[in-house]
């Protein structure tokens, strides 16, 4: 999907005055190189093509243990759903500036997942009500972060580190560390199955339903919110310079607060996705292993969201998710045994560092602020 017409962010098509001579004199090749090097979205798009083509080539050469085909790519998208959604949550809070970050999204997923488990799995609430209430509960958790950060003045890293610990602990304690997987919860798995897309579905692989029910709506809404609404403008303004935003008469605190609450809301939705995907509400979903927060932040950053706030686009986050998901899916086919999971770590680390360094270097080289 392309969201390249987003208006207020100069992170993309770069509006800085450039010498006209250099512009004209450059060959098409040089300009393309420049675009790849300085624009994160172009870089990601190129990387995705390179990754997919390399695997296809490896596949043709017989180096993979299974075909790296559209079916597999499509099936692996199921991972993209929670990852991209949480990365969008991080996009919102990182955009809000002043070191915005949310370490607690994984813990909110765990806690609101348990809440969803109670409501839908045990108390027998109707699904729509349980989903809405879970999203609301997530928003409430996010609102606590937002309150601490926007109104009390906590650095975001600290506030969300604290709530990460607190929510995680509550999620485990709330049901005596047992998951909830009553029949209604188990049946939810059908929500994440793959479906045939109408009209063109015969020609292309089936796509996990979660993409349509959760991811695309979230992507679309976040994109519209950021690119088209007054709230989005305010968020970019606050993230770019909150003092100026205040002097321009904007509600700085409420705007920043909103970013955290929205991130919580998205985390609540991810909780529903996760519960459905695993057919059980697990108290450690979102915090087990390395948790969900760190990968989400990593994806956001890889997608070009500036950690200093005010710069970042939905398209970048979506492309970064696709890149990582498809890269990882291929690695599992390229390496047998335990190596596969290990090389996924290496790939994520190297891609992140390399993309950041490359953009930084190119930005300086071409005189564009990253």
């Amino acid at each position, binding site marked *: 999907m392309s969201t390249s017409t987003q208006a207020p962010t100069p992170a993309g098509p770069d509006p800085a005055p450039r010498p006209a001579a250099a512009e004209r004199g450059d060959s098409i090749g040089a300009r393309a190189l420049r675009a790849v090097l300085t624009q994160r979205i172009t870089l990601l798009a190129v990387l995705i093509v390179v990754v997919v083509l390399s695997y296809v080539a490896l596949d043709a050469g017989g180096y993979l243990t299974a075909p790296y085909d559209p079916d597999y790519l499509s099936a692996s998208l199921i991972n993209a759903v929670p990852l991209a959604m949480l990365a969008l949550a991080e996009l919102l809070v990182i955009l809000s500036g002043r*070191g915005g*970050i949310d*370490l607690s999204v994984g813990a909110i997923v765990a806690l609101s997942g348990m809440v969803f488990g109670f409501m839908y799995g045990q108390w027998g609430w109707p699904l729509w009500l349980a989903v809405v209430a879970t999203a609301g509960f997530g928003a409430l958790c996010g609102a606590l972060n937002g309150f*601490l950060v926007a109104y*009390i*003045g*906590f*650095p975001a*890293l*600290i*506030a969300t*580190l*604290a*709530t*990460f*610990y*607190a*929510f*995680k*602990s*509550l999620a*485990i*304690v709330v049901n005596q*560390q047992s998951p909830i997987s009553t029949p209604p919860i188990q049946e939810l798995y059908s929500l994440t199955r793959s479906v045939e897309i109408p009209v063109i579905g015969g020609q292309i692989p089936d796509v996990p339903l979660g993409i349509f029910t959760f991811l695309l709506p979230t992507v679309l809404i976040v994109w519209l919110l950021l690119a088209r609404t007054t709230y989005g403008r305010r968020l970019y303004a606050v993230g770019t310079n909150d003092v100026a935003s205040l002097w321009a008469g904007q509600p700085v605190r409420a705007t920043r607060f909103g970013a955290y609450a929205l991130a919580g809301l998205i985390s609540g939705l991810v909780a529903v996705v996760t519960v459905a995907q695993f057919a059980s509400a697990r108290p450690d979903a979102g915090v087990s292993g390395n948790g969900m927060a*760190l990968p989400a*932040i*990593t994806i956001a*950053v890889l997608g070009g969201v500036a*950690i*200093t706030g005010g710069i970042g686009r939905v398209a970048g986050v979506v492309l970064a998710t696709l890149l990582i998901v498809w890269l990882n899916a291929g690695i599992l086919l390229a390496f047998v*045994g*335990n190596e596969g999971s*290990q*090389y996924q*770590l*290496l790939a*994520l*680390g*190297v891609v*992140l*560092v390399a993309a*950041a*360094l490359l953009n*930084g*270097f190119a930005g*300086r080289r071409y005189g564009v602020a990253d």
Partner: protein
Amino acid sequence: MTTTAPPTSPRPTRRARVLPPPIAGQELVLVAVIALMWVVLALTTPAFASAGSIQPLLVATAPIALAGIGMTIVIITGGIDVSVGGMMMVCAVVTAKALVAFELALPLALGLSVAVGGLLGLVNGLLIAYGRVHAIIITFGTMNVFLFVGLQIFASRTVNGIPSTLQFFGRGVAGRTLGVPHAFVLTLLIAAIAWWYLRHTAGGRHFYAIGGDAQAARLAGIDVRGRILAAYVVTGLLVGLASCFLIAQGTSSLDQSVGNGKELAVIAAVVIGGTSIMGGRGSVLGTVLGALLVQTVTSGVTQLGWPSQLSDLFVGIFIIVAVGADLLRERARRRRLRAKGAAA
């Protein structure tokens, strides 16, 4: 350019205090809170106040406190290092494997671990100082790379039969002299050196200056890159030492969960200790106290017989309270300044 003190400064009478007080508000508050918790725990549990409880508690505090000292310096410079967990894994597995294979003597084992840590810190430092990319991004990346390296060295096996060489820093009798745990003493010693260095040497003050305003620091002729590099290398060295403590506190085998999640634990200790995440302000003493506080909470919850998972909730609350108190103090300071401005 070093300016020599002019001979014409005849003011030897009263040594005016030329530096801020050595112990600031946050440390005192932490000391009070920890003291209070210890008293309460001593009264409500059968054996909290016994040597058999305090000694292991101090030992368990040591690795987090030690890595926290490095992290404090990094955060003072305005950076952060989320790769310490990955570094711990690499240092620990290399050291454990070497101990098993070569029966290394204690100093050699320490040296190896510290050297490996220093090397990983150097990687971080070079990328951050010369890549001009924010530290959190770089270390998110290197975290994954270090985990990869660690897992590769583990080669899908645990390291078994680690000799007791490192027990010098363990919980057992071998880890104590006159009842005092070596690991904690060494940590305190290093904290004291770091405190002195940060407070009294030019190099130490430069860390603060860089965290305050890196650009201005560069203009002042400070070797900003060198200092930043140093901060990450020091963190690596200390993480290397902390990894030895971890091996000593574990069992005779080492598995690949070592170091998992430690980056957040270390950051928690640092922020509870009053170091500003924005850079430019912080203290290693606070960090040691912060680590001690977290360990007291964890041990306290277990010893009280409460559900062990609750300790995370308390850690979260403590972070809020500790940093909140700091915010309030800062606000009061600004109000005082305004009032003073009004009076003048």
